[in-house]
């Protein structure tokens, strides 16, 4: 494989060796994205109603404990079922990344789920956050951003995480009677994180008006998104100079569509994409070109990716970014030839101890970014003494614990894991290591394996 292909494997996928049938080069990567979702087909997730029902039983059990009509033991039983389902979401993330030839789609799924970060506030919410990534993000990551925005910001996990379900129009019938009012959380993040971006041309009043416009949106356990007209603030609202009026969901959809089509949104999303995939300091000219493609194609994302992948820097060294811990671990499993089936079937404790828990020491606690802005991009945030120390420790110990060290040849491993990206210095160092364990660990802990 050429150096460009090897770089692409790290930059737009989960590393080497590439699965059979993996696309090479910009055109093939884009073609694969335009096709069906292979990862999802290989390891399908439960349908939304099933997850909503599971969530509802846990919510009811929690309420029953409060009322004294159920024991905490019963509640814990329901929570366990929720958590088993949540664990399945985690396993699928790994398995799809390992199995699917369409690695770019898996990386984009992570990127966009992070763009629409939700964190489970209560333990039973965790199946909903999984569903958001599955049903609001994945179907749209090669489609229009408008559709992804509508699906994600109106998803139960988002309504709960950003308090929309408790935001009440102060002038609404419900608000008047109960003395309840606005919660601006979703309105703020919809503008600041999901669309225009912080620092774009909007004012506090736009946030407030959008918050009023979003009132009425609620979440009902078992049912999902519900619109409560009696909680909606009466009258028209003005967001970014545009007036929105009307009944029910129509004005909510209109304002989100308009936000998606805003030129600042085009720039914000383009900058985020280029920052995630290319460099922490992307070329402003590239951003403008990506943003222009976005606006020219009714917020379609494929043309935006196409501009990014056509940039001269897209398949070229240097690799300036650091792989996030999740990529580091999945990439290691791939290099060690751990199969997706093994990940799906390994005992729960082993899965947790070997693959999930170590990410916390590396700075990426599974499912728990600190805020709705998701995980950090800068390499220096990840490659800290503790973060790198934890990667080195994992690299030295885990191949053996996964049964991959015995009989392995580190000199072959360095080539399989890095291809043409293995520098001579590293190959010499691997040959000089005292044991197979140390040799494999050296490869996985190397800068070349941890950068993309």
């Amino acid at each position, binding site marked *: 494989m050429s150096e460009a292909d090897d770089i692409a494997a790290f930059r737009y996928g989960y590393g080497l060796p590439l699965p059979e049938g993996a696309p090479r080069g910009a055109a093939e990567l884009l073609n694969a994205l335009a096709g069906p979702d292979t990862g999802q087909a290989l390891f399908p997730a439960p349908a939304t109603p099933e997850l909503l029902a599971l969530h509802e039983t846990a919510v009811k059990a929690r309420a029953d404990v409060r009322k004294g009509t159920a024991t905490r033991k019963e509640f814990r039983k329901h929570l366990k079922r929720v958590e088993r389902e949540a664990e399945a979401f985690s396993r699928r993330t790994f398995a799809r990344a390992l199995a699917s030839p369409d690695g770019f789609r898996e990386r984009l799924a992570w990127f966009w789920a992070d763009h629409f970060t939700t*964190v489970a506030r*209560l333990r039973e919410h965790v199946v909903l956050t999984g569903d958001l990534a599955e049903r609001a993000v994945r179907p749209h990551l090669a489609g229009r951003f408008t559709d992804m925005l509508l699906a994600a910001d109106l998803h139960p996990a988002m309504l709960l995480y950003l308090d929309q379900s408790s935001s009440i129009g102060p002038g609404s019938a419900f608000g008047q009677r109960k003395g309840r009012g606005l919660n601006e959380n979703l309105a703020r993040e919809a503008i600041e994180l999901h669309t225009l971006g912080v*620092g774009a041309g909007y004012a506090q009043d736009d946030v407030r008006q959008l918050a009023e416009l979003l009132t009425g949106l609620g979440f009902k356990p078992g049912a999902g998104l519900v619109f409560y007209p009696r909680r909606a603030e009466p009258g028209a609202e003005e967001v970014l100079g545009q007036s929105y009026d009307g009944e029910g969901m129509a004005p909510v959809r209109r304002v989100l569509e308009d936000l998606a089509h805003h030129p600042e949104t085009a720039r914000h999303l383009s900058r985020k994409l280029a920052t995630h995939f290319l460099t922490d300091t992307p070329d402003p000219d590239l951003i403008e070109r990506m943003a222009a493609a976005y606006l020219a194609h009714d917020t379609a994302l494929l043309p935006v990716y196409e501009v990014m992948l056509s940039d001269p820097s897209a398949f070229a060294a240097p690799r300036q970014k650091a792989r996030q811990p999740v990529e580091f671990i999945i990439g290691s499993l791939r290099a060690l030839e751990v199969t997706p089936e093994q990940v799906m079937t390994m005992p729960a404790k082993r899965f947790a101890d070997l693959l999930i828990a170590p990410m916390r020491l590396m700075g990426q606690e599974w499912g728990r970014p600190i*805020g709705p802005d998701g995980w950090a991009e800068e390499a220096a945030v990840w490659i800290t*003494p503790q973060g790198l*120390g934890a990667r080195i420790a994992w690299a030295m110990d885990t191949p053996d614990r996964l049964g991959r060290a015995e009989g392995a040849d580190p000199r072959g491993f360095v080539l399989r894991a890095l291809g043409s990206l293995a520098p001579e*210095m590293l190959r010499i*160092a691997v040959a000089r290591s005292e044991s197979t364990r*140390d040799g494999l660990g*050296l490869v996985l802990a190397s800068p070349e394996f941890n950068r993309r």
Partner: protein
Amino acid sequence: MRDVTRRLFLRGGLAAACSAAAHPLLTTMTFAQGAAQLGENRLIVVILRGAMDGLDAVQPVGDPLFARLRPKLGSGAGVLPLDGLFGLHPAMAGLLPLWSAGELAFVHATSTPYRDKRSHFDGQDILEAGTGLDVPVPEVRDGWLNRMLQAVPGLSAETAYAVGREALPLLAGAAEVRRWTPEVTLTLSAQSRLLLEQVYHDDALFRDAGGAAMDLAAELGGGGMGADMQTPGRYADTEMLARFAADRLRGETRIAAFSLSGWDTHRRQGTALPQQLQGLERLILTLRAQMGSTWDRTMLLAMTEFGRTVAENGSDGTDHGTGGAMLMAGGALKGGRIYGRWPGLAEEALYERRDLMPTSDVRGWAAWAMRGLYGLDRRVLEQAVFPGLDMGDDPGFLR
């Protein structure tokens, strides 16, 4: 996290009024005396995750209502008298000498501004963000202890350590801090270390981070932690964290933060809580023993997201409440007393007729500690570190 000042700036209404004022302070304000360093005093903050039951840790045994509300947990058996009203849970008997020496105190009936929903995640978010209720929970991405560091120019990363495996939003933010957990156990042969150093040589980011990681791991794995280190099961982790922190605090480090989990005692609190309290006791005693004379210039604050219900529940535990207790320790403390106004346990004195009524804001105590230890300007504390806080009068708990 970088965006927080801008985010505060953008916010409307009351919050914006104070935050907009806070914004320039973050970049220009320094110490009252303009000192570029934190001096010699040490501040240790311990976050007790899961909501410690303050009423069990420091029991109002002198209040006749207490035994009635807590027929099982409040029997008073073995409780160590502190003053006329309060007694210490026997699991912390090892801290009595500190009480006598004036190196231990408690604040009772204190809480963050968080009310009503009683969610651990939200409660901890507010506790660590140091915000009031005017700021939506997930909105502030840096912690108050980091904002305190931001107010002091010229500090090195070594100044503050987040210790332990868990994320510590309390210290997250723009000011550079170190984080390390002794759980990262790197057992590298000399040859492996040498090879890693060669492999990292040409990549400055990896060279610096990797070098620091290997130094720390070697120090912890080798003689630094001492052959005298016992590892008695349950508290080995806590002791390891304490030793590591003490080691740093004897050196350049001025601020350290930990978290201890496991305080959510909904059931069988009589078994679960003593283990937690003993862990906390071990943490404090280890720090004190290992810090040597540095302990004399140290203030430790152990705080939790909220208290627990005044009455015990049906499964021999307690549920999420409101007002709780904070523990203070250290040689810099004027201890041997219970701080805070005690609201009483009468039903009409309770918050929503179920929880201990908070009579002080946890942030106020932390703010006075930082003012006392480091001479930080009151405006910095009330506007930048804890936006919107009114510190009130000096409670005078430092020596």
